[in-house]
C-alpha cells in the first residue's frame, strides 16, 4: 500500500482523467450516439415491419371472415328470395286457378243461360210450328169433317162432350 501511494502518479491520473472524459464526450457525439441511434432505428424498423406483417395477416383473416360472412348472408338472402318466389308462384298459380274457375263458371253459366234461352226459343218455335201444323191439320180435318153433315154433327157432339167433361 505504501509502495502504491509512493508510485501514484498525479500526472498520469490527470491525463487519464482529461483524455478519458474527452474520449467519452467525443465518442458520444461522433460514435455512440449515431451507432445506437442507427441500431435502434433499425430495430424499430424491423419491429414495425413485423407488426405490419402481423396486421396484414390479421386484416387478411378479417377479410376472409368477412367474405365468409358475406357469402353466408348472400346464401341466406338467396334462400329467402327463392322462398318468396316460390310463395309468389304458388300465390299466382292459386289466384290464376281461382280466376280461371270463376271465368269458367261464368262461361258455363252464360252457356247454360244461352242454351236455356235457345231452348226456350226452340221450344217456342216448335210450339208455334206444332200449333200451326195442328191448326193446319185441324183445318184439313175440319174441312174433311165438315164436308158432310153427319160428320159435322158428330163433331159438334164430340166437342160438346169434351166441353162437358172439362
Amino acid at each position: 500500500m505504501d509502495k502504491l501511494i509512493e508510485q501514484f502518479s498525479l500526472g498520469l491520473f490527470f491525463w487519464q482523467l482529461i483524455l478519458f472524459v474527452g474520449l467519452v464526450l467525443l465518442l458520444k457525439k461522433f460514435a455512440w450516439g449515431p451507432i445506437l441511434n442507427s441500431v435502434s432505428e433499425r430495430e424499430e424498423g424491423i419491429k414495425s415491419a413485423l407488426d405490419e406483417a402481423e396486421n396484414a395477416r390479421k386484416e387478411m383473416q378479417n377479410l376472409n371472415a368477412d367474405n365468409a360472412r358475406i357469402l353466408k348472408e348472400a346464401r341466406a338472402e338467396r334462400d329467402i328470395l327463392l322462398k318468396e318466389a316460390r310463395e309468389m308462384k304458388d300465390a299466382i298459380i292459386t289466384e290464376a286457378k281461382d280466376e280461371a274457375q270463376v271465368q269458367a263458371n261464368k262461361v258455363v253459366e252464360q252457356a247454360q243461360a244461352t242454351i236455356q234461352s235457345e231452348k226456350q226459343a226452340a221450344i217456342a218455335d216448335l210450339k208455334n210450328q206444332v200449333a200451326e201444323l195442328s191448326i193446319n191439320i185441324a183445318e184439313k180435318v175440319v174441312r174433311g169433317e165438315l164436308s158432310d153433315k153427319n160428320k159435322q154433327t158428330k163433331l159438334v157432339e164430340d166437342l160438346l162432350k169434351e166441353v162437358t167433361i172439362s
Partner: protein
Amino acid sequence: MHRITLVKILTLLFLTVTISVKAQHDTPEKETVHVESSDSEKGSLRTEIKEYINHHLLDSYDFSLFSYTNDTGEHIYWSAPLPVILFDGGLKVFSSSKFHHGETVANVSGNYYKVFHNKIYKTNAEGTINLDDHHHPTNAKPLDFSITKNVTVIFLVGLLMFFMFSRMAKSYKKNGLMPKGMGRLLEPIVLYIRDDIAIPNIGKKHYKKYMSYLLTVFFFVWIINLLGLTPLGVNVTNNIAVTLALALITYILTTFTANKNYWKHIFWMPGVPVPMKFILAPIELLGTIIKPFSLMIRLYANITAGHIVLMSIIGLMFIFKSWIGSPLSFGLAFALALLELLVAALQAYIFTMLSALYFGMAVEEHDDH
C-alpha cells in the same frame, strides 16, 4: 475487407510473437551476463530479471521498445523521447532525452532534475538523491504532468477508438442502417453491452445516459489490456492512477445521477428499526466509496499480477538453461498468455458490468427491496 484481414493477421501475429520477442530482447542481456563469473551468474541474472519486471511495471518518460547492453558495456536504447511537463515555480517543458534514460541530470533553466525509480526529483547540479532510512528519496518532487509513455498510449488508444468507432458510425449512414467492415465485428459487442449489461442492470428507462460511458470504458480497458500483452511493453491498466481515474468517473456518475431513493437508502434505510438506521448510515456511506474503490483495485491488481506472473515465467527461461526447462516455461508462458487474453476481456467486462450495477442502484426507483 482486405485491410481488415490484414489488421486481424497483424493482431494475431503480435499476440503470438509477444513471448518470443520478449525472450529475444532479453537475449543480449543473457549474453552479457554469460561473460561474468559463473558463481554470481545466477544471482545477478535473477536480480536483473526482477529489476526488468519492476521496470516494466512502472511508467517511463520515454517510449522505449527495448534496451540492451552491447559487448563494450554501453547501454543501447531503442526508444523515442517524450515531452516532460513540470510545474516547479512556473511551467517547464522539455524533452525527456535530457535525462538520457535516467542516467544523467537534466538542467532546465537553472533547475536540475533527475529520474530516480521512474520519478522526477529536483536535485543539485551533481544529481544527488538523498535517501532516508526506508530508501525513499527526500528530494523535492516537482508537480509532474509529463506526457509519459502511458499518457502517450492512452492518447493513441483514444485516437484509435475515435477512428474505429466514428468510421463504424459513418458506415451505418452509408449502408442503410447496417454496419460495414469492422462494425460487423464490433456491433454485437456494442449490442451485448447494451442488452446484457446496461439494460438488465440499469433498467430500460435510464440506461441511455450511461451508455456512452459504459461503451467507452469497456472498449478502452479491453484495448489497453490487449496492448499490454503485445511486445510493445505497454502497461497502462496496472497503474493505480489510471484505474483510479476510471473508478472516480464511475463514482462521480453514480453520485451525481443518483435519485432521492438512493440517498434515502444510504442515510435512512427504510424497513429497519431506528437505532439500526443510525448504524447503517455510515456503513452505507462508506459502501458508496468502497464500491468504486474495489473497481480500482480489482482492475489494477488483476493486470499487474498477470504481468508479473507472465514476465516471471518468461524470465524463468533464462534461469533454467537446460534443454527441458526453457521449452517448459515457454509452454507455460504461452498458456498463461492465452489466459491473460481472457483476463483482458474479462476485466473490461467486469469493470463495465459493475459500473452498470452501481448506476442501476443509483437510479433504482421502487421502494421495496
